[in-house]
C-alpha cells in the first residue's frame, strides 16, 4: 500500500455516459483524495449531477471506470449496498421521507442496511441531529420543518451510514437565499473535519473558501480544474472566464 502514497477515495477514469444519442459525459477524468473538498461548477445541463450519480451507481456508465474506496463501480460482483453505504448523497430537493419523523428518516438506513438495533440507531441519529443543530426536532415530520431544517436532516440521514465520501448536489439551490447559510455552515463543519466531499454548487463563495479543488464543467467535459485560487482568479479557458463573469 506504500506503493500508492495518495490513493484516491474517488476516481473517474475515462467515464462516458449517453442518454439515447445525447452524450452527457465525455471522457471524464477526476480524482478526489481522502479529506479533499472537490467543488464542481458549471452551467445547467453540463453533466454535473450525472457525474455524482455515476459515483453511487444511480446512473450506470457506458465506458470508463469509477472507483470508490477501492471498489470498482462497474464490477458486477460489487453489490449496490456495499457501494452506497460508502457514499452519502444530499439532493437539491432534500427528498426526505415525508411519512417519517426526522428521527426515523435518520435511523431507517442504519437499521435496515447496517442492521443496528433500534436503540443503537436512535443514539446515532440523535447525535447526528445534534450535530446539525436539530436535536429538538427529532420528532417533527418534514412538512413541519423549514427548507433549511429539512436539508440539515437530509445531511444527518446521509451521514448515518458513516460514509467515506459525501456527495452534495446543489444542496442549497432550493433554499431561500437567507437560509442557505445554515446548510453551508454544516457543510463547512464537515469539511473542517476532513470529510471527503464532492459538491456540485452554485455558491461560488463556498467553492472558493472551502473547496480544495475546483472543477469547471461545460457540455459534458471538464474544461478546467485546479485549486480555487487558480480557477477563480486566473482562469485559462475562455469558457471558464465567460461562466465566471456571469456568476461572480
Amino acid at each position, binding site marked *: 500500500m506504500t506503493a500508492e502514497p495518495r490513493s484516491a477515495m474517488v476516481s473517474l477514469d475515462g467515464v462516458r455516459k449517453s442518454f439515447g444519442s445525447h452524450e452527457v459525459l465525455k471522457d471524464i477524468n477526476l480524482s478526489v483524495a481522502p479529506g479533499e473538498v472537490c467543488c464542481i461548477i458549471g452551467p445547467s445541463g453540463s453533466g454535473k449531477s450525472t457525474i455524482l450519480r455515476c459515483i453511487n451507481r444511480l446512473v450506470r456508465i457506458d465506458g470508463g471506470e469509477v472507483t470508490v474506496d477501492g471498489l470498482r463501480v462497474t464490477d458486477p460482483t460489487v453489490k449496490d449496498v456495499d*457501494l*452506497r*453505504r460508502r457514499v452519502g*448523497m444530499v*439532493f437539491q430537493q432534500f427528498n*426526505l421521507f*415525508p411519512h417519517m419523523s426526522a428521527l426515523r428518516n435518520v435511523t431507517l*438506513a442504519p437499521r*435496515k442496511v447496517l442492521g443496528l438495533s433500534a436503540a443503537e440507531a436512535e443514539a446515532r441519529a440523535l447525535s447526528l441531529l445534534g450535530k446539525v443543530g436539530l436535536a429538538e426536532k427529532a420528532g417533527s415530520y418534514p*412538512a413541519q420543518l423549514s427548507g433549511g431544517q429539512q436539508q440539515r436532516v437530509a445531511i444527518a440521514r446521509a451521514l448515518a451510514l458513516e460514509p467515506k465520501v459525501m456527495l452534495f448536489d446543489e444542496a442549497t439551490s432550493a433554499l431561500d437565499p437567507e437560509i442557505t447559510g445554515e446548510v453551508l455552515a454544516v457543510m463547512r463543519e464537515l469539511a473542517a473535519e476532513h470529510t471527503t466531499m464532492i459538491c456540485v454548487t452554485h455558491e461560488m463563495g463556498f467553492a472558493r473558501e472551502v473547496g480544495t479543488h475546483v472543477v469547471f464543467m461545460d457540455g459534458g467535459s471538464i474544461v478546467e480544474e485546479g485549486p480555487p485560487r487558480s480557477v477563480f482568479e486566473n482562469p485559462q479557458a475562455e469558457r471558464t472566464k465567460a461562466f465566471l463573469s456571469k456568476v461572480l
Partner: protein
Amino acid sequence: MLAAARLDFSIVREAAPALAHGALVTAEITAAGLAGSLLVGIGGAALRTSKSRAARTAAAAFTEFFRNTPPLVHIFFAYFALPAIGINVPGIVAATTALILYQGAIAIEIIRAGLEAVPAGQLEAADALGLGGLDRFRSVVVPQALRISLPALGNNLISLFKNTSLVSAIGVLDITGVAQDVIAQRLSSAELYLTIGAFYLLSVFAFSAVLRFVESRLARYAT
C-alpha cells in the same frame, strides 16, 4: 302523509332475526370482498408497473375487461355459465368471487396510480441509502402510495358494499335477499326497503367516518 300513516313496521320486527342474519352475510361478503380486492389490486398493480411487457399487458386487459362490464353480469356468469363448463361453486362463493374481480380491477388502477405518484426523488433517496428492493418498497413506496390511494380505495370499499346487494339476484340471502324473501311472502315492500335502505346508508356513513379519521391522522405529514 297518508301513505306514511299506512306503513306498518311490525313486519320488520317479525323479520328482524332473518334481516340480522342477512346483514351478517352482507358484512361477510364485504369483508371477503375488501380483502380479496386489495390483494388483486396490489398484485395487479405490481404487474401493471412491472418490467415485463407481457405482465403489464395481461394486467391491463384484466382491468379493462372487469371494470368496463357490469358486476351483475359477472355474478350471473359465475353462477350460471361456469357450471355449464363443469365448475360448480355455491352461489355465495361465485358471487363474492365476481365482486372481488370487479372491485379488484378498480383497485388495480387506484393502486397503480398511487405507486406511480410516489416521486422519483423518493426512490432515489432510498437507493442512495442502500435500501434494497423490498425495504424500499415496504418502507418508502407502499406507505406513500397507500396514503395517496386512500380516498379512492375508500370510495371503492363503499362501492363494493353497495354492490353486495347484487348477490341477491342469484338467490344469496344477504340483507337484500332476505328482504326480497319476506316481501314475496307478505306482499308488503315499502317498510322493508326503507329498513334496508337505512342499513346501507348508516353503514356507509360509518365507513366514511372511519376513513375521515384515518385521513386526518395521516394529514400531519401532508406534503
